[in-house]
């Protein structure tokens, strides 16, 4: 197991390197380099100034030189400055990731808390009214546009009922500490519910089909046959086995939680990593986009590994050597 872990971690290094090359090339090939964007609409700029600026930014160097420069600086912890925010990119990205956590973590837990019991019950009472209702609900969940659902929630709770803020991050002027936390919670509720609903739909479906498969297994029948109470059969024999594939799906889903957040974060004007990607790509802030995307890529790799490890830990039939 340890050897496997080390090997997987070592394999990650060339992967991260490869991804950084791809992200770099994609962003470099974008129409309009930083200097164009910097000077756009400024009539006083002369051609010589543009040349000078391009030289300062190193935009005249060949691609591989530019990449090696970026990599060299990155390896020393210098990921450059954000053109839009005028702060070091790394600081900015960490800041935004922390903000995103406010949404991703609670929504993830909320989705779990609803989807697993609903999925299990749905499977245990297949073709019951509850099962049909749950199936219907999952259809709604996968068909509804997240951003529209968000806008409708804003309309209901902020415009009509006036109980929650229509978006944003914090009310200005609230003293730090306990009041600030309570204030933050009010902003968190709507986006968390929207994000959770989207995950819930797919998760309920997975739980249901995984459970359906397991309760038909011989070992579940054996457990029943030897007279175990139904609660033990379901909770101990069936559910624990049904959850194995779900853990994998969850681990693989966490990166997309961050990546799928651009829509929800845009609707609710939440300054998270998803919103940062939209802004930096849209505004030509490539140094930021590069690091934000690289962060997501690393997240994917790490959680892929965690999914594999969790699988081996939970299912003794699976071994890595």
């Amino acid at each position: 197991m340890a050897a496997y872990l080390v090997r997987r971690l070592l394999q990650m290094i060339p992967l991260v390197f490869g991804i950084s090359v791809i992200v770099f090339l994609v962003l470099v090939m974008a129409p309009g380099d930083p200097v164009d964007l910097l000077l756009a609409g400024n009539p006083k700029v002369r051609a010589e100034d543009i040349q000078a600026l391009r030289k300062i930014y190193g935009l005249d160097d060949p691609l591989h030189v530019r990449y090696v420069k970026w990599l060299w600086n990155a390896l020393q912890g210098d990921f450059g400055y954000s053109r839009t925010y005028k702060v070091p990119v790394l600081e900015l990205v960490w800041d935004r990731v922390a903000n995103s956590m406010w949404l991703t973590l609670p929504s993830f837990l909320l989705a779990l808390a609803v989807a697993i019991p609903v999925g299990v019950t749905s499977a245990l009472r297949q073709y019951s009214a509850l099962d049909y209702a749950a199936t219907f609900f999952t259809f709604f969940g996968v068909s509804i546009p997240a951003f529209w659902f968000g806008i409708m929630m804003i309309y209901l709770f902020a415009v009509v009922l006036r109980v929650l803020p229509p978006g944003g991050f914090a009310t200005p002027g609230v003293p730090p500490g306990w009041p600030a936390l309570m204030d933050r919670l009010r902003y968190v509720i709507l986006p968390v519910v929207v994000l959770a609903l989207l995950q819930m739909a797919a998760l309920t479906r997975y739980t249901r089909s995984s459970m359906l498969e397991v309760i038909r297994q011989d070992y579940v029948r054996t457990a029943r046959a030897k007279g175990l109470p139904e609660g033990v059969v379901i909770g101990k024999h069936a559910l624990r086995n049904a959850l194995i594939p779900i853990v994998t799906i969850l681990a693989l889903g966490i990166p997309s939680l961050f990546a799928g957040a651009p829509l929800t974060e845009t609707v609710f004007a939440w300054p998270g990593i998803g919103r940062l990607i939209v802004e930096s790509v849209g505004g030509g802030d490539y140094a930021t986009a590069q690091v934000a995307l690289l962060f997501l890529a690393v997240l994917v790799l790490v959680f892929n590994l965690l999914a594999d490890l969790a699988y081996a830990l939970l299912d003794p039939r699976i071994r890595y050597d």
Partner: protein
Amino acid sequence: MAGRLSTETNAAAAQAAAGPARTWATGQSYWQLAWRRLRRHRLAMAGGGVVLVLMVASALSPWIAPYPPTHIDLANRMSPPSGRHPLGTDELGHDVLTRLLYAGRVSLTVGFSAALASALLGTVVGLVSGFYGGWLDNVLMRFVDIMLSIPDLPILIILARYFGGSLLGIVLVITVFGWMGTARLVRGEVLQLKNTDFVEAARALGASPGRIMFRHLIPNALAPVIVAATLAVGSAILTEAALSYLGFGIQPPTPSWGNMLQNAQDFIWRTPLLAFWPGLMIFLTVLAFNFFGDGLRDALDPRLRTG
């Protein structure tokens, strides 16, 4: 589609092709039976009906829309529903009903084209991967794994920023992340079919790889591809709407349901209905495709019925 069995030279070999052969006795083809099963599926028929209405309405929009798509009624901006504007007007004075109809054309075109392109690309990759196997299969399937594990939205945003302005561009961008499911599906089918007796028989008779692929493998792997493509229309429409909402997709003045929502949120205090209609259209359309696709899955492959 008809005669997919009549070309078979070997009757015994035809029997091996599970589903279709058994229907021979009743004189009904596989597709007729599938249609009968589909007709009994109420949600699927409702979904199909909604899709049909949307397609007709979009196709006829130049004739049934009250105004031309870029017509601006400056005197009546952000007006509530009225006789002149059944669903009101937006902040520029566009008639909302007109914009919804024309946007439907864009969304359906993008949805169908992207689904079709994804199905084609996925079928080719899956076919090659399953048929030739070996290192090629390995390389292609690892690539599929990688593509599936990439969180697609950020990459789509970047791609859409470069290529997304046009209809063709957005279709291509959505296709980039749309083909992997079909590829896996087709590969799986091909791996199973490759070793059936009728394919063996065809090979023994000296059929070329091309003939085996087009005559025997593709027709028999078609049903799941059709189901996947139907469901893909819905998700392509959602993706287009999301990109357009973020400002990277279809650009105004061309209306799309996504870009109609882009500004609507700013006016939610004054004219909330402006944000309601386009989203409702997206929701209904995607839901309809999902219901239809789900029913289609049950109808085309009763063995797969998951309940």
